[in-house]
């Protein structure tokens, strides 16, 4: 764990779960796995609060526990899982694009609560959907649970490891911690539930709003009394599956950008690649460097309906794709009209390299990018060669080269002619080590997101008083509208915020939006770099 990552984790935990959880979580990330009492002692937090914080962290799958030999339970934080919190909006948005509003809400509830039983999810989502609907319409439980089953079938949600049922005749004291098991076969198995009912509106707008906080509590306790049909079977969002989806989308759009602008019929080659990826979605584990070989006949059959291209044209496209120097698609055999695979590892490598190139271009200018691409292409180059090949005056070329060298985008390899490493008798070769450059960039990304969050918090803190005021005014206006106040009165209250204040609020909102949007988009780069590094590490 680098310092930048820890810093980012700390900010994320604090924003999502408050300071106490942040303290415990960061302590666990720093020190590795620790037992309860040690955590309480080292952080100087009361045992009770540590327990609460750990419960929250375990609930959200951010901490796992393990029983050690002498019956001590140790808790360990999952740092990389904490960083995934940055990507929550993207997961939810993806679920929306794939499974519309119902899917969106299911994934959102699962992410908000860490893990939930299916019945609880279905109930909650149906209620929420009903609230957004017009009066008189309600959402059926069955419809929501259908979407849930579809999500499970496509592996976007999965079961959490569960506690195996133990016989009652278990002798001796119970173990200090339950042992959670997981089996591949049941991971996506949806329990047979007959959820009948409709989403309820939380309240019918007017009068029972007053008694709402009181009325809520007994209602929940009565809910708990009826037996839950799928008690103990918890579900969570399968983030790896989402990542696989993101990766496939990135590959498809890369192919579209590269190939489809040259071809007459637009989008065809990307559609071919999309079909291939969709066919191997379930058959290929997300960590494999290649997809399963697919014959051109199979691909032809699986093309989306209404896509009118002949088999010959498809074969031409496949050959074209296989001949492309980027090697996204490779030919693995000739049987069955030609077997084709998608080289996922290569594709990720190309995407990461393209990211590096564009960072160099935006940071150091296009001439530097030229040198960078040159070194990438020729692998090892001496300084003199760089100057010549790039056709840039020697002095400027050196300047650029050193700038990139000190920025760690380019690395230097010494090859001494004599064992004494005398500089006059040593070759200095410039190279691009993509893996280490990607790591460096990833580290910078973490740092910049942490900076963005800090800046956002600073901006909001600076304007805290103003924000509170505007919230208060809005609350008053809303409540007056509900009671049917006159237009003049409303206007009067609205004028409590002066014009300069309004302007200041606008600026703040714009800034915060920009910072938030940047966070999301930097995370996209993080995703690409992480996938590349992960896939490269797997191959070594």
């Amino acid at each position, binding site marked *: 764990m680098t310092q930048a990552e820890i810093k980012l984790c700390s900010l994320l935990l604090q924003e999502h779960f408050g300071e106490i959880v942040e303290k415990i979580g960061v302590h666990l990330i720093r020190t590795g796995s620790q037992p309860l009492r040690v955590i309480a002692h080292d952080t100087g937090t009361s045992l*009770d609060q540590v327990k609460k914080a750990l419960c929250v962290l375990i609930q959200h799958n951010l901490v796992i526990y393990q029983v050690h030999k002498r019956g001590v339970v140790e808790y360990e934080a999952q740092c990389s899982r904490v960083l995934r919190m940055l990507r*929550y909006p993207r997961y939810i948005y993806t679920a929306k694009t794939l499974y519309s509003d119902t899917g969106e809400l299911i994934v959102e509830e699962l992410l908000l609560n860490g893990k939930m039983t299916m019945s609880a999810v279905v109930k909650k989502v149906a209620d929420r959907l009903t609230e957004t609907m017009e009066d008189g319409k309600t959402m059926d439980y069955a419809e929501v649970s259908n979407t849930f089953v579809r999500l499970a079938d496509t592996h976007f949600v999965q079961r959490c490891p569960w506690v195996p049922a133990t016989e009652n005749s278990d002798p001796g004291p119970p173990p200090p911690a339950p042992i959670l098991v997981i089996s591949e076969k049941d991971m996506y198995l949806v329990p047979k539930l007959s959820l009948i009912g409709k989403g309820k509106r939380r309240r019918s707008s007017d009068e029972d709003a007053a008694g709402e906080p009181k009325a809520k509590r007994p209602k929940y306790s009565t809910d708990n009394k009826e037996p839950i049909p799928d008690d*103990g079977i918890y579900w969570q969002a399968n983030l790896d599956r989402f990542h696989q989806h993101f990766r496939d989308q990135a590959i498809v759009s890369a192919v579209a950008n590269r190939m489809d602008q040259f071809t007459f019929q637009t989008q065809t080659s990307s559609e071919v690649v999309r079909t291939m990826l969709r066919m191997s979605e379930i058959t290929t584990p997300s960590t494999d460097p290649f997809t399963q070989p697919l014959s051109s006949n199979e691909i032809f059959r699986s093309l989306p309906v209404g896509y009118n291209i002949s088999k010959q044209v498809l074969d031409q496209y496949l050959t074209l794709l296989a001949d492309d120097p980027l090697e996204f698609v490779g030919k693995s055999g000739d049987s069955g009209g030609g077997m084709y695979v998608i080289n996922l590892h290569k594709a990720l490598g190309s995407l990461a390299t393209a990211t590096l190139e564009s960072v160099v271009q935006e940071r*150091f*200018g296009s001439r530097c990018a030229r040198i960078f691409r040159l070194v990438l292409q020729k692998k090892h180059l001496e300084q003199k060669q760089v100057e010549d090949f790039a056709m840039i005056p020697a002095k400027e070329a050196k300047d650029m080269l050193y700038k990139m060298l000190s920025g760690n985008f380019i690395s230097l390899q010494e090859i001494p002619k004599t064992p004494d490493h005398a500089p006059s008798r040593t070759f200095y070769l410039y190279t691009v080590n993509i893996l280490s450059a990607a790591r460096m960039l990833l580290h910078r990304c973490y740092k910049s997101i942490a900076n963005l969050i800090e800046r956002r918090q600073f901006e909001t803190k600076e304007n805290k008083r103003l924000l509170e005021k505007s919230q208060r005014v809005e609350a008053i206006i809303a409540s007056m509208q509900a009671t049917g106040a006159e237009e003049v009165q409303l206007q009067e209250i609205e004028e409590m915020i002066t014009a300069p204040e309004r302007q200041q609020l606008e600026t703040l909102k714009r800034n915060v939006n920009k910072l938030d*949007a940047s966070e999301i988009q930097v995370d996209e780069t993080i995703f690409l770099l992480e996938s590349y590094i992960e896939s490269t590490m797997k191959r070594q």
Partner: protein
Amino acid sequence: MEEYGACQGLKSSWPSGRGLAREWVGPTGWDRNKALRPRGGRSAVLQRWNAYPSARAFCLHPFLAGRHFGCTVLPKPRDLVSRTNPMAGSQGRGRAAYTFNIEAVGFGRGEKLPDVVLKPPPLFPDTDYKPVPLKAGEGEDYMLALKQELRETMKRMPYYIETPEEKQDIERYSKRYMKVYKEEWIPDWRRLPREMMPRKKCKKAGPKSEKVKDTGKGASLTNTADVLKKIEELEKRGDGEKSDEENEEKEGGKEKNQEGDEEDDDAAEQEEYDEEEQEEENDYINSYFEDGDDFGADSDDNMDEATY
């Protein structure tokens, strides 16, 4: 410009007969005391050379240097200069100090070398190029809205544990609007280690949102509550001692360990009990405020829209 780098070579102005020049040159530069000290013999030279691994990259091996020029006597400064830079005859002394051709690094003849930088880079460095605008589109806007909504929702979930805030002198009226009602959350104890679970399985077992422990309510605490507090404090102290003992016992043996655990659990139970008492005290206060809160509860939803 005076240049006392790591690879000075020889200086004709230095006292002669005192040994190899590079023997005097530490990683920090030329050391006058060392330079003027009598030589320590061949082995001492070698030792010193070995002591600075970084110097190896730049300086020749002390013995090799002599041999390299095919003579046992030390090379004259002029020789060194002509070896590294054949054109340097007219250049003067300063530039000749490097064993490699500094023109290869990009410095022309007669050019000044840049000064040594002795401060950290600026916090907000100027950028040569303006950043490109952010991606915009329907998806991006939606994700932005989701992110901001998610952040606010998280704060209202029972998982958000608030720190007990310090008491403000003036209780602000606006506080009532800010109050957030959280659902209770009871974790599934079957999935958690046993030590997580408070001993009493009562309604309040769940680590629900921490009630704001307002010290301002201290005034309304009755005498009995004070006594209870004291007892709790005492017990906490006792608890700490016990855990120390327990640690010692752990080393002792397993049976003892279990005993310690049980004791410990008892203490935990007590603690839990006390806390409940406290909470009841707070509960009373909360219910007292609840009457005035209807307004706030109503406006709760409206506030969501104005979130950043």
